[in-house]
C-alpha cells in the first residue's frame, strides 16, 4: 500500500506522522525531535536553513529569518492585519503583484506559499529519511477558521513542496480524529486549540466511526505569540520609562526580547515567578551598554493576557450556540496546542465547560496524528464500509455581493462539506453579454467587510432583451473547504465560461516557475552538500600544511629550489582559500589534488628532518 503522511503545518511548530501497522505514529527527525520549528532562514551563503538550525541562528540573523509565515499565508496585502504584522516582524514583507504578501530575504523575494513549502519539504524529508522511500502524498492541516484564500495558498505550498495534497483538513478536526480513532465512542466533544498563532474551537459529534463537526469557530490572529507580545510590550515600556529608549527599533534586541518573553511564559506554566535577564540588550553608543533585568510573576502574566483568554471563551460560547447544544451535553473537552499548557488557560476552559479537560492526547502531536489517520483512511477506502468518515463544515458564510454593496449568504457557515448552492443571475440590460459576480466569504452583512474570494465575469451571453437570459451559477465547497464556481445558461443548458479577475491566488504559471526554481535549488543544494564534503577535505590538507610549514621552511631555505616550492605552495593555499570563500566547487576540485600532493611532500620532508 502506498505510504501517505499527515503534516501539521503549525504557526510555530510543525509535525509529521503516519499510520504504521494500523497505529498513528509521530515521526521524529534525525535529531530525535518530534516537532520542527516552522522557521526558515536564508544564510549569508544563500543557503536555506529550515527548522531547528533556522531557530538557532534567529537572533543573529533576525532580518532573514521567517517565523509565523502561517499568519501571512493567503492573506491580502490590503488586510488590516497585514499592517499590524508588518510593524511587528523583524523581516521585511512587501506587496506582491497580485495584492498578496511577499517576503524579502536578502536579495530575493519569496511568496508566502514558497516559505511554507520549505517547511513542508523539510517535514517530507523527515518522513522520507525515516521510511527510506519517496513520499508523495499527504494530508495537511490548517486552522479550521482559515478562509478559502488561506486554504488555497496552503494547498499551493504543498504543490511547491512536491506533495500531492490529497486533503486539507482542519486542525481541531484532526485532533478529534486522533482522539477517537478506532475507539468506538459515541459522544459530543469540544476541541480547544490554542497554538502559536491561531485559535480554533470545534464541536464534534462522534459515533459509528463518523466524525461530524457541528460547528467551528476561531480567530486566525490569536495565539501564543500574542501572549509573548504582551510580555515584550511590558518589558519594552518598562525599559522605555527607565531609559527612554524603544527597544523595538533594534531588530536584534526585539528578537532577544521575544525569545526571552516566550521562555519566561513557558517557565511560568510551572513556576510562580521567573527572572528575565538580558545583559547588553542595547548599546548606547559611547562604549557603554544597557542591561535589562526584571522579575515576572505568574499573576502578572495572567493579568497581561486575561483579555486574550477571555476572547477565546467568547468564541467558545458563540460556537456552542452555532452547534445548537448546551455545554452540559459535551462529554469531553480536548486541549490542543502548546499555549494550552498555561494553567490559567486550562482553568478557564475547565470553568467554562464545567469539565476537566481530557489528558489523553498530546497537545503537540495530536493534530499530525489526526492528519495521518485521515490520510490513511482516504487511501485505504475500499469496497466495504469505510473505517472512518469525516463530516466537516465550512467555517464562514459564502455569498455574493448584491445591489447596494450588501452581502447575500448562499451557503451559511457550519454547513457540512461538500456542499453547493445555486443562484440565478439574469441580465439587467437589453443585449447584455456579461455579468459580474463578486464572491465573498465572511460574517458581515456588508460585502466590503468580508473577504473577497474573487470576481467572476460570465462572458459571451447570448444577446436578448433584459431579464431573458438566465444563468444558474453553482457555488461549490469541496471537502477541503475550497470554493469553486460554475455557471450554466438555463435556456440553452450550455456551460458558461467564467473568468476570474480578482484574486490573490498565485497563477498556475507563477506556481510552475516557483516549482522549477525550487527544483533547481534542490539540485544546487545537493551540489552544496558535495561542496561541503570537498571543503572539509581541503581544510584538512590546509591544516596539515600549516602545521608542517615552519619545519619545511627551515630545511628548504638551505636548498636552491626550496624557495620556489614554498611560493608555489603558498599560491595553492591562497587559491584554495578563495575557492572556499566563493563556494566555488569547480575551483576547489582543481586545487584539491595539488594540495593533497603538497601535503604529502611536506610530510616527507618533515619525516627526513626528524631522522
Amino acid at each position, binding site marked *: 500500500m502506498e505510504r501517505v503522511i499527515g503534516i501539521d503545518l503549525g504557526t510555530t511548530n510543525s509535525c509529521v506522522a503516519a499510520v504504521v501497522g494500523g497505529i498513528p505514529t509521530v515521526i521524529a527527525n534525525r535529531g530525535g525531535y518530534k516537532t520542527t520549528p516552522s522557521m526558515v532562514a536564508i544564510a549569508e551563503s544563500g543557503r536555506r536553513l529550515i527548522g531547528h538550525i533556522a531557530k538557532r541562528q534567529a537572533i543573529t540573523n533576525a532580518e532573514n529569518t521567517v517565523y509565523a509565515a502561517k499568519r501571512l499565508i493567503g492573506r491580502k496585502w490590503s488586510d488590516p492585519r497585514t499592517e499590524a504584522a508588518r510593524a511587528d516582524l523583524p523581516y521585511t514583507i512587501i506587496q506582491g503583484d497580485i495584492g498578496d504578501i511577499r517576503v524579502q530575504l536578502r536579495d530575493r523575494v519569496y511568496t508566502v506559499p514558497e516559505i511554507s513549502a520549505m517547511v513542508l519539504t523539510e517535514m517530507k524529508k523527515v518522513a522520507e529519511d525515516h521510511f527510506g522511500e519517496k513520499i508523495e502524498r499527504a494530508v495537511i492541516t490548517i486552522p479550521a477558521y482559515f478562509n478559502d484564500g488561506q486554504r488555497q495558498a496552503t494547498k499551493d505550498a504543498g504543490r511547491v513542496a512536491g506533495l500531492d495534497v*490529497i486533503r486539507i483538513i482542519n486542525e481541531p478536526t484532526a485532533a478529534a480524529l486522533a482522539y477517537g480513532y478506532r475507539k468506538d465512542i459515541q459522544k459530543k466533544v469540544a476541541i480547544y486549540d490554542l497554538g502559536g498563532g491561531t485559535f480554533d474551537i470545534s464541536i464534534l*459529534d462522534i*459515533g*459509528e*466511526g*463518523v466524525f*461530524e463537526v457541528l460547528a467551528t469557530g476561531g480567530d486566525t490572529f490569536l495565539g501564543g505569540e500574542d501572549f509573548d507580545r504582551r510580555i515584550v510590550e511590558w518589558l519594552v515600556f518598562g525599559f522605555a520609562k527607565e531609559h527612554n529608549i524603544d527597544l523595538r527599533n533594534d531588530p536584534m534586541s526585539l528578537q532577544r526580547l521575544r525569545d526571552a518573553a516566550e521562555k519566561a511564559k513557558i517557565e511560568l506554566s510551572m513556576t510562580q515567578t521567573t527572572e528575565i535577564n538580558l545583559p547588553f540588550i542595547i548599546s548606547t553608543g559611547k562604549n557603554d551598554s544597557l542591561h535589562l533585568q526584571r522579575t515576572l510573576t505568574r499573576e502578572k502574566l495572567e493579568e497581561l493576557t486575561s483579555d486574550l483568554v477571555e476572547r477565546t471563551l467568547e468564541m467558545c460560547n458563540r460556537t456552542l450556540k452555532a452547534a445548537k447544544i448546551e455545554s452540559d451535553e459535551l462529554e469531553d473537552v480536548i486541549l490542543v496546542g502548546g499555549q494550552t499548557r498555561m494553567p490559567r488557560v486550562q482553568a478557564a476552559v475547565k470553568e467554562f465547560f464545567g469539565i476537566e479537560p481530557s489528558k489523553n492526547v498530546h497537545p503537540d502531536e495530536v493534530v499530525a496524528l489526526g492528519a495521518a489517520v485521515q490520510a490513511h*483512511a*482516504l*487511501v485505504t*477506502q475500499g*469496497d466495504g*464500509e*469505510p473505517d472512518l*468518515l*469525516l*463530516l466537516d463544515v465550512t467555517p464562514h458564510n459564502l455569498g455574493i455581493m448584491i445591489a447596494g454593496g450588501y452581502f447575500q449568504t448562499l451557503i451559511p457557515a457550519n454547513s*457540512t462539506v*461538500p*456542499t*453547493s448552492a445555486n443562484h440565478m443571475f439574469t441580465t439587467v440590460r437589453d443585449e447584455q453579454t456579461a455579468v459580474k459576480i463578486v464572491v465573498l466569504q465572511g460574517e458581515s452583512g456588508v460585502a466590503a467587510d468580508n473577504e473577497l474570494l474573487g470576481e467572476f465575469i460570465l462572458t459571451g451571453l447570448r444577446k436578448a432583451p433584459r431579464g431573458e437570459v438566465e444563468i444558474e451559477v453553482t457555488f461549490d465547497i469541496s*471537502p477541503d473547504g475550497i470554493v469553486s464556481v460554475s455557471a450554466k445558461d438555463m435556456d440553452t443548458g450550455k456551460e458558461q465560461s467564467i473568468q476570474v479577475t480578482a484574486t490573490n491566488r498565485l497563477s498556475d504559471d507563477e506556481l510552475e516557475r516557483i516549482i522549477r526554481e525550487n527544483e533547481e535549488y534542490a539540485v544546487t543544494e545537493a551540489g552544496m552538500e558535495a561542496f561541503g564534503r570537498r571543503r572539509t577535505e581541503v581544510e584538512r590538507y590546509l591544516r596539515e600544511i600549516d602545521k608542517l610549514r615552519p619545519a619545511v621552511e627551515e630545511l628548504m631555505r638551505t636548498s636552491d629550489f626550496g624557495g620556489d616550492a614554498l611560493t608555489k605552495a603558498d599560491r595553492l593555499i591562497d587559491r584554495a582559500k578563495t575557492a572556499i570563500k566563493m563556494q566555488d566547487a569547480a575551483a576547489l576540485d582543481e586545487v584539491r589534488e595539488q594540495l593533497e600532493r603538497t601535503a604529502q611532500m611536506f610530510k616527507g620532508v618533515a619525516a627526513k628532518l626528524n631522522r
Partner: protein
Amino acid sequence: MPTKPIRDDATVELAPGTDLTGLELSQREGFLLSRVVGRKQTVGDLLKVAGMLADDARTILARLALRGVVTVKAPGGGPIAEDDEFDGMVFSPADLGAPADLTIEQKKRILYVEANLSRWNHYGLLGLKRTADAREIKKGYFRASKEFHPDAFFRKELGPYKARVDRIFRAMKAAYDVLNDEKRRQEYDDTVEVGLTPAEERELRELAQKAEEKKEQAQKDERLQARLKDRRLKRNPMFDRIHKARAFITQAETALRGQKQAAQAARLARLAKDYAPQDGGIKARADVVIAQANLERARALAGRAEAIIATYENDRILEFVDEMEQLAPRDPAVLLKAAKMANSAKNPQRALKLATTAASLDQASQKAREMVYLLAAGVGSWHTALKAAEWLRDKDPKSGEFKNMVKEAKRNL
C-alpha cells in the same frame, strides 16, 4: 421507468385482439414478439428461445406488457414480478455497463437510490421511520454518509456515477438538515404528504408476515398438542399405569362406601398403589382407603366376637385376635372385644395386654378398667388390679363395689 423483472413461471401470450400490422416495434421487440405469437408458454421457456440476454428480454417483455401487446399471467394470479432488494427495478444495461470503479452491486445500489430520490421522503432517504428520535436520525444519516459521502469513493474513477453519488449525498444531507432541526422537522411533517417510508413498508410487511406466521404456528401447535396427547395416551406405558391406578382407586373408594366390601376396597387400593408407586396423590388416597377398610373389617370382626367365640377353636379365635389387633391397633372398642376373645380362648395374659392398651387409648372408659381389673386379678397381677380398682373408685367414690375391689387387691398384695 423502473419496472419489476417478470417471473420465469409466469405465462405469456399475445393479448387477444392485438392487431400486429398496426404496431410500431423496434427490431428486437418485433423479434421477441415473433416468439410469442401463436403459443402460450412460460416466460422461462420464452427466454430460452428469445436469442438475447435474459435481462434485456425481460425489459422488452415488460414494455410490451405495459403497452398491452402481450398478456403475462402469474400462476395462481399472483404478482408477475418478484420482489428484490431493489424493489424489482430493472437496470439499463447501458447504465450498468458504464465504466466506473464500482462493483455491479454498488452500481445497482446507486442507480436504485438515485431513481428514488424524488419519490422517497426525507425519512425514506435516510432509511428511517417517522417515529425516529434524534439519535436514530443521526444514526441514519451517519449510515447514509458512510455509504454515499464522496470520501467513500475517494480516488475512484466514478465516471457517470460521480454526479449520481453527489446528488444522493446532497439529498441525504438536505433531508438530515430538516429532520435534525426540531422546528423544520415539525414543519415538514405538517406540510408534506408523507407516504410510508421504505423502512416502514418493510416493517409493516414483516409485521404482517410475522402475524401470518404466528397464526400458522398457533394452528400447528394445536394440531401437534392433540397428536401428542393421543400418542401419550396410546403409547406411554407410564401413562397407562397411572390411568389404571386411578381407575382402581376410584373403584376402591366406591367399594368402601358400599359397606361390607372393605376387604375388596383394600385390595383395590393396594393394586392402585402398585400401579403408580410414584404417584403421591394415588398413594395417599389408597392409604386412606386401606386404613378405612382395615378398621371396617376389624369392627366387623369385633361385632361378631360372641359368634366367633362360640363357633371356633381356641387357636382360630386367637388368629382372629391377631388380625383384629393388626387391623385396628388403635381402636379401644375393637381391642376390648379382642381381649374378651383372647380370655375366652384361654390366653388371659394376652387379654390383659389388649385390655391395658385399650384402657390407655381411651382414658375415660370405665369398661376398659373393669376388664383390666378382672383380668389382672385373674392372673394374679394385683399391682395392675389395684391401680385399675383405685382408678374406678376415684371415678365413682360412692360405689361400694369399687371400694371392695380396692380392698381385695390390697389384701392380696
